[in-house]
């Protein structure tokens, strides 16, 4: 690192060899939480007949078995496909509308009113309507996911745009920026932290709504459908295996993908 002249604020950085310890500390709470869930589960399995609550070991073996089965991978893959499409569209839409709202007053008021009314409807309540409008298949599910992820994102971005420093905007104006440049160079980068938080909340919503919508109907593949069907044919082991897969994948996606993305986009904050 270059020598700092003058009175630069140098923040002490932890040394590299402490990395493994930090990693351990970060993982520990998750490990403890996981262990306590396992314990509770084992206790329940002891109390209830195994056709109602199969023990953890049986379920784990089933998970491994299913992961080796093509039909299961296809079904999980379909769920992911729906999530990916829906969440991406929701993010793009939320960002665009949030930015527009921040910049144009009238638009903002209208959208705020719409959001206030619509966002309290649980996303899966829309499924029957969407099935009627769009037919069976992926489309209603994806639309539900979009709704679930869109609102937190939009609200987050709208609020952030309102809080963009007038000073930053003035600087750009003084430098001769036109409206498009203001959006691209001031508003958009300034709201990235809000986008990320909005996205994290939205992702949780999207994932939950995905599984729920797949259970409600209109599809014949998907993780939610898999769990539902297993429940219908008395296969509680598969039900719990499906739930386990949901939990693991959700944690992985959030911890690995989203968290990494957040750090990359906000690296200026974490430096």
């Amino acid at each position, binding site marked *: 690192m270059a020598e700092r002249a003058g009175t630069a604020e140098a923040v002490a950085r932890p040394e590299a060899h402490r990395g493994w310890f930090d990693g351990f500390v970060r993982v520990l709470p998750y490990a403890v939480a996981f262990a306590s869930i396992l314990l509770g589960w084992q206790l329940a399995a002891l109390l209830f*007949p*195994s*056709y*109602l609550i199969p023990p953890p070991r049986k379920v784990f073996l089933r998970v491994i078995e299913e992961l080796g089965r093509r039909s299961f991978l296809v079904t999980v893959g379909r769920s992911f496909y729906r999530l990916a499409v829906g969440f991406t569209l929701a993010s793009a839409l939320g960002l665009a509308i949030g930015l527009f709202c921040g910049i144009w007053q009238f638009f903002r008021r209208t959208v705020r009113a719409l959001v206030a009314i619509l966002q309290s409807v649980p996303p899966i309540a829309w499924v*029957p309507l969407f*099935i*009627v409008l769009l*037919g*069976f298949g992926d489309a209603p599910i994806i639309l539900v996911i979009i709704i679930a992820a869109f609102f937190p994102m939009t609200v987050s971005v709208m609020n952030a745009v309102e809080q963009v420093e007038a000073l930053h905007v003035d600087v750009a104006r003084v430098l001769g920026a036109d409206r498009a440049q203001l959006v691209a160079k001031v508003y958009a980068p300034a709201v990235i932290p809000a986008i990320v938080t909005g996205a994290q909340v939205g992702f949780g919503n999207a994932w939950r709504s995905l599984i729920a919508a797949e259970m409600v*109907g*209109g*599809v*014949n593949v998907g993780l939610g*459908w898999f769990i*539902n*069907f297993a*429940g*219908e*044919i*008395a*296969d*509680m082991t598969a039900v719990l295996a499906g739930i386990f897969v949901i939990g693991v994948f959700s944690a992985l996606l959030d911890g690995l993908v989203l968290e990494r993305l957040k750090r990359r986009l906000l690296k200026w904050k974490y430096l």
Partner: protein
Amino acid sequence: MALIRKAVGLAAGICLMAAPALAAEKLRVAYVHVFDDAPVVVARDKGFFAAEGLDAQVTMFMSGPTLVKGLVTDQTDLGVLGFTNAITWAAQGADLKIIGKVQEGYHSLVARNDRGIKSLKELKGKSLASQAAGSTADIVLKGVVLKSAGLTEKDVNLIYTAPSTALASLRAGRVDSAFLFEPYDSIAKASAPVTEIYEIGKVWPFPCMVVIVPGKLIKERPDAVKKALAALKRSMEFMKEKPAEAAKVLAPSFMAEEGLAMEGKTLPADEIMLKSLKNNIFDWRLAKKDLSRMEELTGVMKELGILKADVPLSSVVDLRWQNELERQKP
């Protein structure tokens, strides 16, 4: 001393008054909201349960797989539902017994006239709205109906949905065909451009709705079991002898929601009910042919991968009360 005598006398009097009320046994009865289970509704509404001395608390479920969970978790005592549900749970270790029959399977496969489906083979690549996934009807559809045309569930775009949604989708043309039971079948034929291309009852009759109870009930309250079966038997006989009256009783339960669904076309509910009554075979006896069909279907379930372990039918079927009822007949 006089006071004590008076008190005892009073107590005895109260007990005597309460006796008739105590005599009516409480029983939680559950059925699936499908016309196949009509005998339960008739038994309830015509007082046949009460006549046998049963205080029946009747609950309705939207599907067999949901109902059987109530049986397994001791939330209901007696259920009328598709027999495969007993098999799947028995395979997992639950103690369930099939003790009598209610209805023989009637499911018709109707297809829209404009989709070029004249026989089962042409279902390949088309969409088919089916019943609750994993239900008896669903198993029969996959393992018998489709199989007979050389198709598997992968060849057809199966859509699992409630029958009323299936009906609406069929009429709106969103789905090419549907596997329906009464009264939806009759309603569809009356209100949508569809043709029936297959009906299982004609080709491959099988016992569909049966009476299932937890083994515990048989051990602890055999009397209640006997009375319930007797009530259902009476109910089915009534439906055969007086169909018009039965139709009236059934209409509010099964037609209330559909009556409004027709825009412009008024379909008299009674008519639909009568048609449905005629199409269905309600019988309380599980005969040898029924048992062999059940064996076949158990094999089908194994083929479809729904059943993971072997379930000998004899461990699930208990025909003691049916035999008793038969002996009782004059």
